[in-house]
C-alpha cells in the first residue's frame, strides 16, 4: 500500500533528521490518566492489534529501491510489533504541567521505518497505578497524523469496551489504495508548478528560524507545557472567535505563536526575516467515517513580515487574507498534487529542494491547532483521562514547534524545542507573550 504524498513529505524530514541529527521525526500523544488503568490488558490489546493490523509494524521502503515508497504489509511479520514499556514512580510530577523525562527522551531515540518500528508506548505508573498513570504513544509520523492518532486511541478504548474489535477498522476502506485523482497528469503537473511558484513568492523575504539553518547537530528535544485555567480558556476561546472568526480560530492561535517567537527575536536583538509557517489542513472527507492510518493532510503556508506582527489584529487579518487567497487559488489541492509527485524523489533531494529557497531554512517554526483533543472520549482502558495532548516533533532546524489543543475545558499549548535554541530567559519571554496573547 502506497504512502500518501504528505507521508512522503514527512518521510523526507524523518530521513534528514536521521542523517544530520541521529534521531527520527517522532510524534507523541500523551494521556494523563487517573487510577484504574489496566496495563496488562493494554499490552494484550496492543498485541492483538499488531496481529490484526499489519500496517502498525509494516516495513516502509521503495519496491526494488525505486518508485513511490510503500508499506510492505506482506513483510509485516518481520516488522517489530509496538513495544509497551512500563516504568514505576512514587508520585506524579509537580506541577501538573510537568511530564516524565522519559517521554522527552523517547522523542530523541531512533526508530526504524525500514524495520517496521513505527509505534511504541511508554507507561509511567504512580504508586503502582493508584495515583494515576501517564501514557505516551510515540509514532513515526508516517503511521498516523495527529487526527489519526486520536482516532486510534479512541478505537483502542472502543475495543476495550467491546464496541469494536482489533480486526475491525473505524473506516472500512482505509487500507485500500487511494482513488485515482480526477485530474489528468498534465493538470496535476500544472497544479504542482502553481504550488511551487506560490512558495517561491515567499523567498523575497526568507525566514530565519530561532535555531538557524540546517546543520549537523544531535537532536535533543525538550518540551514545555502551558495550560490555561478554565476561566482563561473561556476568555481565549471567545477571543479566538471574535478576532479570527468562529470557523478559523486556528489563525488566532497561530498569530499568538508568531508573536511569541517575535518576542524572543526582539529580546535577542535578531532579525526574523519574515515569519513563514506551514499549517496542516485535514483532508478527510467531511461527515464520513475517518481514516486512522497514514497522513491525510495538505499544507497551507503563511507569511508575515515583522511590521505585520506588532498588532495582533493586524496579524490575524493578514493571515485570514492569506488563507482565503490560498484556498481560492486552489493551493490546498495544488499542494496535494506537488506532494504526490515528490513521492518519487529521493529523500535527500526532497529535503534539499524544500530548504533551498530559504537558504537552508525550512520555515520559522512548526505549528498545529488540533481543536478538542479526543472529543467524547472520557476514559481509556478503565481510567479517567485527566488531560491529553499532542507533542509535535520538530527537526533541529527550525527547532521550535507549538501545538495547541483543548481538553476538559482547558486550553493547552505544548512547546517542543531543540536544546540550546532558547535560553532560560528567552523561554520566559516566549511563555509570557504566548500566555498573554492566548488570553486575547
Amino acid at each position: 500500500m502506497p504512502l500518501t504524498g504528505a507521508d512522503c513529505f514527512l518521510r523526507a524530514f524523518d530521513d534528514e533528521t536521521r542523517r544530520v541529527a541521529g534521531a527520527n521525526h517522532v510524534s507523541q500523544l500523551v494521556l494523563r490518566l487517573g487510577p484504574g488503568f489496566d496495563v496488562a490488558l493494554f499490552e494484550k490489546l496492543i498485541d492483538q492489534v499488531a496481529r490484526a493490523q499489519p500496517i502498525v509494524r509494516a516495513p516502509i521502503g521503495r519496491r526494488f529501491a525505486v518508485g513511490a515508497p510503500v508499506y510492505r504489509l506482506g513483510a509485516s511479520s518481520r516488522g517489530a510489533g509496538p513495544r509497551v514499556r512500563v516504568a514505576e514512580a512514587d508520585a506524579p510530577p509537580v506541577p501538573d504541567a510537568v511530564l516524565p523525562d522519559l517521554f522527552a527522551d523517547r522523542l530523541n531515540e531512533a526508530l526504524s521505518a525500514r524495520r517496521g518500528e513505527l509505534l511504541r508506548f511508554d507507561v509511567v505508573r504512580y504508586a503502582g497505578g493508584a495515583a494515576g498513570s501517564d501514557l505516551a504513544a510515540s509514532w513515526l509520523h508516517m503511521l498516523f497524523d495527529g487526527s489519526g492518532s486520536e482516532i486510534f486511541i479512541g478505537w483502542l478504548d472502543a475495543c476495550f469496551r467491546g464496541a469494536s474489535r482489533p480486526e475491525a477498522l473505524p473506516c472500512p476502506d482505509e487500507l485500500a489504495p487511494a482513488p485515482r485523482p480526477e485530474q489528468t497528469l498534465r493538470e496535476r503537473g500544472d497544479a504542482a508548478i502553481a504550488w511551487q511558484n506560490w512558495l517561491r513568492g515567499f523567498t523575497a523575504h526568507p525566514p530565519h528560524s530561532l535555531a538557524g539553518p540546517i546543520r549537523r547537530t544531535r537532536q535533543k528535544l525538550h518540551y514545555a507545557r502551558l495550560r490555561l485555567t478554565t476561566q482563561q480558556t473561556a476568555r481565549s476561546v471567545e477571543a479566538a472567535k471574535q478576532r479570527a472568526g468562529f470557523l478559523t480560530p486556528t489563525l488566532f492561535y497561530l498569530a499568538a505563536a508568531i508573536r511569541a517567537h517575535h518576542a524572543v527575536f526582539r529580546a535577542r536583538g535578531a532579525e526574523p526575516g519574515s515569519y513563514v509557517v506551514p499549517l496542516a489542513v485535514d483532508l478527510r472527507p467531511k461527515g464520513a467515517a475517518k481514516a486512522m492510518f497514514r497522513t491525510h493532510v495538505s499544507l497551507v503556508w503563511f507569511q508575515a513580515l515583522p511590521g505585520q506582527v506588532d498588532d495582533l489584529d493586524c496579524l490575524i487579518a493578514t493571515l485570514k487574507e492569506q488563507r482565503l487567497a490560498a484556498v481560492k487559488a486552489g493551493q490546498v489541492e495544488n499542494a496535494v498534487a506537488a506532494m504526490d509527485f515528490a513521492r518519487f524523489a529521493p529523500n535527500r533531494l526532497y529535503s534539499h529542494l524544500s530548504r533551498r529557497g530559504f537558504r537552508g531554512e525550512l520555515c520559522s517554526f512548526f505549528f498545529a491547532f488540533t481543536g478538542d483533543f479526543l472529543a467524547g472520549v472520557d476514559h481509556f482502558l478503565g481510567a479517567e483521562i485527566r488531560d491529553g495532548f499532542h507533542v509535535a516533533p520538530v527537526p533541529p532546524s527550525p527547532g521550535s514547534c507549538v501545538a495547541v489543543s483543548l481538553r476538559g475545558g482547558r486550553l493547552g499549548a505544548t512547546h517542543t524545542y531543540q536544546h540550546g535554541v532558547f535560553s532560560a530567559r528567552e523561554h520566559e519571554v516566549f511563555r509570557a507573550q504566548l500566555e498573554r496573547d492566548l488570553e486575547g
Partner: protein
Amino acid sequence: MPAPTIEELTATVFAILRDEVLSAGSDFSVRSNLIDAGLDSLAVTQLMLSIEESTGVWVDESLLTPENLESAETLAALVHERIAEG
C-alpha cells in the same frame, strides 16, 4: 436574468453541500445542522467558492455565524439577502 428565489437557492446550496463538500449520509437534509454534518473552515470556503460560481455572489466569511450555518436553508437565506443587497 431574474434573481433566484430562496427555494432555488436552498436547492443549489443543498446540492453543493451534498455532492461536492460533504460526505453526508442519506439522512442529510436541508434542515440538517452543517457543523454537525462535518462542515469545517476549509469546507466552508470551498462552499462559498461554489456558491460564488453558481450565483455570482461572494459571501464574506465574517457573515458566516453559527446561526447562518445552522442549515442549508439558513445559509441560502443569507445568500438571498446578499443578492438582494446587490
